[in-house]
């Protein structure tokens, strides 16, 4: 039963792929939220501009 290097590598590879994928999904969701916030701010600036005129 000794060694099992292939199984060890498979397990560690899975761990880092899983963690990496989750981090990527967090990053993408964060970017989407920041983009929405930026768009809202632009709309607010436009609204304020139209109120002035």
């Amino acid at each position, binding site marked *: 039963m000794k060694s099992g290097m292939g*199984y060890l590598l498979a*397990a560690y590879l899975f761990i880092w792929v899983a*963690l990496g994928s989750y981090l990527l999904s967090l990053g993408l969701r964060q970017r989407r939220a920041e983009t929405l916030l930026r768009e809202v701010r632009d709309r607010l600036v436009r609204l304020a501009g139209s109120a002035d005129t």
Partner: protein
Amino acid sequence: MSRKLAPWQALASLLALVSVAAALVLALRWAPTERTMGDVQRIFYFHVPSAWVAFLCFFLVFAGSVGTLVGGRRGWDILALSAAEVGVLFCTIVLVTGPIWARPAWGIWWTWDARLTSTLMLWLTYVAYLLLRHYAADARRRATLAAVVGILGFLDVPIVYFSIRWWRTQHPQPVIMGGKGSGLAPDMALTFLVCLVAVTLLGAALLLQRIRLEYLRDEAYAADLATSDLEADRT
């Protein structure tokens, strides 16, 4: 709130990065090779800490769910949601690395013993929790329903933990705090401790990041709604 949490999240991420690097070196290079199982036993150093972090996260789901039902503040709900997501991630790691270790150690990938089955049930419960949160339309009802599932789901955690003491299982008896004849060699114990701290810090960093994201989303949706109202008033 998202900005307030930023320095803590940065600190947790930095500590996690350093400790995970040390944990990897210890687990893959420094720790002695186990006599019976060989190198495959090194899966243990990340398998068990992942289970610990999953349990910890599910406890936070429980606490957040109780807080949601009692106090009703959004912060509790955000804690529960974020901890459920991170908990499912670490529980998935446990459920995948376990069979990869079981195949060379037991000769089988999976068996329906109490520990493995109750862990799978735990995973399914929190996946259902996340699906419920994703598909339920009304925000207030969603938080209440999810809180009930979050509290009931936590009942499985002690069953998973004690299953190997209560029933005869294929899964080995506890190595740490398992009573007479259990325990680790000093070098293995030190490696395990470092891995436990590293994976806990990694879990904390991910949890803080997820909490920050939820506050940011709340901020964005609230601002979007308010701006839409203003635009509607103008037209």
